[in-house]
């Protein structure tokens, strides 16, 4: 089996490549050209000579560059296509709405247009987001909950999410949305709140930093573990029929709780180390976000098992290890 992954250098992309390589797939990743070759999440695989250039390949392209994407796809002829790339930071999407829309919304449309012409078309998975629900009035949300985004990122994802349905229904593509609730890991970007917390807890424990500055700590999220989410993404494309699936744990926690677990793991009391700054608050904070993953449970046999406390511990341990090495 041959798979293409956009966003392979990201958290989910790197775990998904690991997952697919372990199942014997040939994995092709799309990467943006940059003058820095920093792809820390992939280093281990790219440096593995038994994998890189043999079962793992990276191709330069960009979600705004249709001709190069088309050329790469017609050469690879993949069986599965995992579209995970996008400008994925919600807060930032208020600062750079145009490029967020260009990559996240238009980028998805361009890929769907290319797949439409490829025979046979690969099975297509779009990593959609619970941000499409904005501030929902119904909780928990399922696959039938109406979209009502309240950020440029959410609006772009809602557009992409709906287009995936359109191409499935009208063009007969095997195209699915994985509507993902927050999912974290030691590979989460350093400007997302959970990772900010795990790095701070580890740094404070080691005495190399003093405090952590945060926006709202009462924000409520449904947090899962990224390794379990990529497993579900793969399962979605193995089904007999294409469908959309909510991927969520169904349990919610506050930022405060996550912080408590992270600091407790290294024997610290967060209250002594955290300061607040309005700057980190979003213009609109989403509420009532809790996913109902009953369909995924029923049809994919998928049940997330890692608790938030375990996740926090895993992330803090990783950052302790990393900081010790560089200190």
């Amino acid at each position: 089996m041959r798979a293409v992954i956009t966003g392979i250098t990201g958290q989910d992309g790197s775990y998904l490549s690991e997952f697919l390589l372990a199942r014997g797939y040939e994995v092709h990743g799309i990467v943006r050209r940059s003058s820095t070759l920093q792809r820390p999440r992939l280093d281990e695989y790219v440096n593995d000579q038994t994998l890189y250039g043999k079962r793992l390949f990276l191709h330069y392209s960009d979600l705004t560059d249709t001709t190069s994407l088309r050329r790469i796809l017609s050469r690879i002829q993949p069986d599965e296509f995992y579209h995970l790339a996008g400008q994925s930071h919600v807060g930032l999407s208020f600062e750079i709405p145009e490029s967020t829309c260009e990559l996240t919304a238009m980028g998805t449309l361009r890929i769907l247009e290319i797949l439409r012409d490829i025979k046979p078309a690969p099975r297509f998975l779009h990593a959609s987001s619970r941000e499409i629900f904005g501030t929902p009035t119904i909780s928990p949300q399922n696959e039938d909950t109406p979209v009502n985004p309240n950020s440029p990122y959410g609006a772009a994802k809602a557009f992409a999410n709906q287009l995936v349905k359109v191409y499935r229904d009208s063009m007969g593509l095997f195209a699915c949305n994985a509507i993902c609730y927050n999912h974290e890991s030691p590979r989460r970007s350093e400007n997302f709140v959970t990772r900010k917390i795990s790095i701070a807890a580890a740094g404070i424990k080691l005495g190399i930093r003093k405090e952590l500055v945060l926006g709202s700590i009462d924000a409520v999220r449904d947090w899962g573990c990224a390794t379990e989410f990529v497993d579900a993404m793969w399962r979605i494309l193995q089904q007999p029929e294409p469908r959309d699936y909510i991927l969520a744990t169904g349990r919610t926690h506050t930022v405060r709780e996550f912080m408590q677990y992270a600091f407790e793991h290294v024997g610290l009391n967060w209250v002594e180390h955290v300061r607040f700054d309005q700057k980190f608050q979003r213009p609109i904070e989403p509420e009532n976000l809790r996913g109902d993953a009953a369909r995924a449970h029923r049809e994919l046999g998928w049940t997330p098992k890692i608790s938030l406390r375990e996740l926090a511990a895993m992330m803090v341990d990783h950052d302790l290890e990393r900081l010790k090495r560089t200190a």
Partner: protein
Amino acid sequence: MGKSALITGITGQDGSYLAELLLEKGYRVHGLVRRSSSFSTGRIDHLYKDIHENPGLLLHYGDLTDGQALTNLVLSLEPDEIYNLGAQSHVRVSFDQPVYTLMTDGVGALNVLEAARILHQKKQVRVYQASSSEMYGAVLETPQSETTPFNPQSPYACAKVYAYFQTVNYRRSYGLFACNGILFNHESPRRGETFVTRKITRAATRIKLGLQKKLFLGNLDAKRDWGFAKDYVEAMWMMLQHNEADDFVIATGETYSIRDFLELVFSKLDLDWQKYVEIDPRYFRPAEVELLLGNPSKAQRLLGWRSKTSVDKLAQIMVEHDLELAKREKHNQSFTS
């Protein structure tokens, strides 16, 4: 109050050296960075650490292809100088991604000029456009100077020629203080690792320490005029301090083949390059630029600029740096295993 500057491409080789230079001169420096889930600020992290004592450097998310966000940023910062160094800068990659390369290197430059043109209505702003010796392509005369016609040989060079002429056009049409620096190859320990000089110094030092066995290269006969990036960013700054906006060739005036550079680097490590280097046709460009040699006399005459670092010294600087990297890598290997 000191001057302020906006640098696109601040995370790259030239951007990082230029940021250093401007900070030393007391500028407030703003950098444009593309958002990415992995941080790309390795070359400027050492400047950024001091933010609490010295908020001289600020980074802003944006993209050269996002003209509105760029214009908003320029209008809110009102910089005295804008250095447009951001680009898809790899020539070989531009053959695989011609459209993206034109959007970023061509239209991206136009977006910068448009933003500057709007700001120009309110206050003086000076713009530096990073032009490239690649624009000479299949060269029509040797050495190449400001009057040598362009004959681009790659999508990258075509896009850079477009940006060059738009820069000239904005100077003539709107009186914008906009300069092209036509820089010949300039290298450093911060050169991207897919560029040939850095590829060579990385490989040679890793081979020296037993971390690597072979080095695969493309055309060894291509000849380039290689200078040191740190000298070259100074020329960028000098252009914008000159009393008149103009275009300048920045080069050493000497040319060496890739084979010569290999020889220099490997001999510094007491190695014979012929034992380690293999030719891989994958690295050949569809169309090669065989010989680049710049004539920097205009920059010498009008700006008082000259290249200070010989190619031998440059190779030495890069080898020393990469040898340190290789040693650290070896140390880490023993640490993790």
